[in-house]
């Protein structure tokens, strides 16, 4: 028997944002409690108040430098509603979709190749100096090259549709401020075949990893939960830009479906806990104990009836076959799901680039002004909700944001505890490699902690180990 201990992993690395993990070990070295703490606070919901409604999509995207397009578009959708526009012009909607697919592609590629690949290629317990993108490039130069060029492609799509690769201004209330010139279209079409091939290879890589490590995937941070996402209203297909809300239980039972997202607040309740700046949402009718849910790529694969692009749909069927069509509860399967979405985005971009509506000149629609607007989108990390109220002077009076990582808060905490119990319990010596297992579980959700807390600051994660009396025994702080 030994002294109770407290382990602190601080900061958690290769995630976006600032967080730490604390793990309490009792006198028998058994994990008593393990938590992901979000230690940053930003307050966008407060300081956006008073600003002018058309500024909102440009201001709130500053929540994030990785997925600003998601915030830009979710806010723009909310402002469409306030501007009284229920139907965008074809050019505006397709330009926004193109922007979004470029965004999801680049964000997923960034996560999979730059952040997660070192763990998957070299092992969770590999030396810390090995676990970075530079080592990936050194050992797998072709993979490294593709990672960079695929991300570049997505970023250039964003630049062509929003004006800048990061923090553009394309989406405006009621529409878009540009179309896609033919020469830009042709530039993108020139490498779309290559992108498709590389995306297929990425799906294969993630699939093979998942299937080859079947036992690890089945036990690593794997637990039942509910799942929620937007799906296409008409047929339940995967739709990253628009749709209605659908939620499933861990066994596939439909919890709700075809719910307009403007009614999100009737379904979702946000809980707060004293030890984190991030809220804990749950489905109100079920309650906080069982009503929590997960969002993101794997959640979308679970909720979507099918994918409306052939290559991604075939890949989805393969993923669903692993669990015989029931929801997949394995945290690590997120990587496979994420790459299926990259393939879907590439297919969608090809479809759009051949659509002459992208060269249309009818960019902005108008309507009768409303006081309240809700915009929901499927961001790379999952469902993203923006809700605003605007007064008669065009000034924002209310803002509520529920971002993907917030939806996943309970899920990530469960994953942390699950992995801590399986990999740290009973161990006398806790190594850095063991602690990285905890980070791997968090990383699989590709959390954006800055978005989730709407926070300013640096971007690390830390892990702490406490004894039974609450004394800090050990902590590890890692920098990317």
């Amino acid at each position, binding site marked *: 028997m030994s002294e109770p201990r407290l382990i602190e992993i601080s900061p958690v690395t290769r995630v976006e944002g600032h967080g730490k993990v604390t793990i309490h070990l009792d006198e028998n070295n058994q994990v008593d409690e393990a938590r992901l703490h979000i230690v940053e606070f930003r307050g966008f919901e407060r300081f956006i108040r008073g600003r*002018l409604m058309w500024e909102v999509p*440009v*201001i709130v995207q500053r929540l994030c430098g990785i997925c600003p397009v998601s915030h830009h578009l979710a806010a723009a959708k909310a402002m469409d509603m306030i501007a009284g526009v229920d139907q965008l012009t074809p050019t505006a909607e397709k330009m926004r979709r193109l922007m979004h697919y470029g965004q999801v592609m680049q964000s997923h590629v960034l996560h999979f190749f730059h952040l997660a690949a070192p763990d998957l290629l070299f092992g969770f317990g590999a030396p810390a100096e090995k676990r970075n993108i530079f080592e990936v490039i050194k050992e797998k130069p072709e993979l490294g090259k593709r990672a960079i060029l695929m991300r570049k492609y997505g970023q250039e799509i964003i630049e062509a549709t929003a004006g800048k690769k990061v923090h553009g201004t394309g989406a405006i209330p009621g529409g878009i401020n540009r179309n896609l010139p033919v020469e830009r279209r042709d530039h993108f079409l020139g490498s779309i075949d290559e992108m498709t091939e590389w995306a297929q290879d990425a799906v294969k890589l993630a699939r093979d990893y998942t299937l080859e490590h079947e036992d690890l995937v089945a036990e690593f941070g794997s637990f039942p939960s509910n799942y929620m996402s937007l799906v296409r209203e008409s047929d339940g297909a995967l739709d990253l830009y628009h749709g209605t809300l659908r939620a499933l239980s861990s066994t596939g039972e439909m919890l709700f479906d075809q719910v307009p997202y403007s009614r999100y607040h009737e379904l979702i309740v946000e809980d707060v806990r004293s030890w984190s700046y991030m809220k804990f949402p749950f489905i109100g009718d079920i309650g906080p104990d069982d009503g929590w849910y997960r969002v993101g790529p794997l959640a979308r694969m679970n909720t979507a009836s099918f994918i409306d692009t052939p290559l991604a749909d075939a890949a989805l069927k393969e993923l669903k076959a692993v669990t015989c069509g029931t929801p997949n509860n394995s945290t690590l399967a997120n990587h496979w799901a994420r790459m299926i979405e990259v393939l879907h985005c590439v297919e969608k971009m090809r479809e759009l680039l051949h659509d002459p509506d992208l060269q249309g000149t009818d960019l902005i629609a108008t309507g009768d002004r409303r006081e309240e607007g809700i915009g929901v989108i499927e961001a790379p990390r999952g469902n993203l909700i923006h809700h605003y109220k605007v007064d008669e002077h*065009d000034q924002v009076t209310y803002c509520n944001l529920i971002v993907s990582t917030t939806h996943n808060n309970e899920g990530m905490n469960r994953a942390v505890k699950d992995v801590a119990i399986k990999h740290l319990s009973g161990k006398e010596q806790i190594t850095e490699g063991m602690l990285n297992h905890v980070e791997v579980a968090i990383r699989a959700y590709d959390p954006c902690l800055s978005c989730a807390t709407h926070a300013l600051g640096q971007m690390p994660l830390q892990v702490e180990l406490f004894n039974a009396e609450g004394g800090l025994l050990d902590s590890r702080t890692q920098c990317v």
Partner: protein
Amino acid sequence: MSGTKKETGFTFTIDGVEITAYAGETIMEAADEAGVYIPRLCDHEGLRHQGSCRVCTVKAGGRSVAACTQPAAPGQAVENESPHLTKMRRDLVEMLFHEGNHLCPICEASGNCELQAMAYRLDMTETTRFPYLEPCRALDASHPDIALDTNRCISCGRCIRASEDVDGKGVFGYVGRGIHRRVAVNGENLADTDAQVTDHAISSEVCPVGCIIRKRVGFVTPIGEREFDKGLIGHEIEARRK
């Protein structure tokens, strides 16, 4: 501003370049015609000269003078783009950034803003040296078509002169003294004045920054098509140079 040109002009030099001027013309007017750009913020075509921002300061006859108000003189040697004057102008512009709350990344005037464009022209690229004053200023959105975000005001007074001299309204005026001097409206708020969105004072060319906002325009003009995406501030004047 000068009246009608006299028949016979005279010459003087700016940085060694011979410039033709006519009686009554300021250094800046003659320079503009000749395609020599002298940086300025408070001066604006069609409005009377004020000489308050001092960004147009040049050296003439050994003295520092405002080019927008100083008459050109025959045979005078004017210094415009010397390292010393450029640094002085950059310092002035930097201080303007420090006095207000200029958040270019989220400002709808970004790309059309003369203050931002001037900072680029003067190569204001280093870390700022002065402490931000971070004044607490309210946004006046009371008017149905116009908003006033004085966080971005640089007190150039162009709106004051445009409203008084062109619109004949006097919607804007200065209040306070010294560092506390600021532009205010002639009423409780903008809705309480005669301001109309069609006023010259409200037009985007008169306000050099994002202070006077025509509502619901915002980011309609995309990045790449904004005024200073076409070239450095002053490029149109420099294009006149033969």
